[in-house]
């Protein structure tokens, strides 16, 4: 059986990589990819802690619901990115500075 702290180190690394992607990339779709990476890092922690108590299913259930929320976030986020691109002709979040034309 694989020790839990390997999962936790990998989860920490993935979370920090997602944070760096979110901060450094100048594109809304890359920011969404970084958010997906951070959500998966948290999922990895939930699944890893669930194997400490295999009789309880709470960790796996929470991971499933996190995946569902990630799907909703990706769909709505990409729809907003498309709409902003149609309106402003850019997908750089820093260039969308006006609320109303």
């Amino acid at each position, binding site marked *: *059986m*694989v020790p*839990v702290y*390997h*999962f*936790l*180190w*990998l989860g*920490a*690394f*993935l979370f*920090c*990589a*997602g*944070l*760096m*992607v979110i*901060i*450094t*990339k*100048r*594109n809304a*779709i*890359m920011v969404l*990819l*970084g958010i*997906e*990476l951070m959500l*998966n890092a948290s*999922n*990895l922690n939930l*699944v*890893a802690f669930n*194997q*400490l108590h*295999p*009789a309880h*299913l709470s960790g*796996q*259930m929470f991971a*499933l*619901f996190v*995946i*569902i*929320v*990630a*799907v*909703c976030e*990706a*769909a*709505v986020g*990409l*729809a907003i*990115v*498309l*709409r902003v*691109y*149609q*309106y402003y002709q850019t*997908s750089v979040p820093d260039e969308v500075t006006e609320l109303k034309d």
Partner: protein
Amino acid sequence: MNFVTILFYFFEAVAALAALSLVLVRNVFYGALILVVCLLSLAALYVLAFAEFVAVTQILIYAGGILVVIIFGVMLTAKIAGKPLVVKHTNVLSGVLAGVSLFTLLVYFLSSHKFFEDQKEAPPSEDAINTIGFGLMTEFVLPFEVAGIVLLAALIGAAVIASSIKSKKV
């Protein structure tokens, strides 16, 4: 070191390298493909952590759903068709500082806490998918139904937002 441990280290290394290259890559299309490599290796890690149902859900939803949506988004927001969508980097110093400092903090806390002493050696041997099905219909039935409503609302909202009503500008 048995075969399962070697598999675990392999998929862990693949996931970490994919995350690192997602930080460095400049092409958004390659970024989406690298993310899918990372998510599939995470699904393999879920199998090794005795969470088969979560692993199958991860493969179905991410490789089948989110990848397709993201690639559609990349194709619909490229200015000139046929030219790759290349992004610039900003705030490199602050991003690296935030990431490295958070990672140092997390590793410090993880190494100061002994999580693995109370770990049982025997893995769960009962039928996992059967147990998850019973759990979804008995103990977790309220979050299950709420998740269905959230999915419906989010997908209708996404379809309405992205529909082709003419905007004023452009």
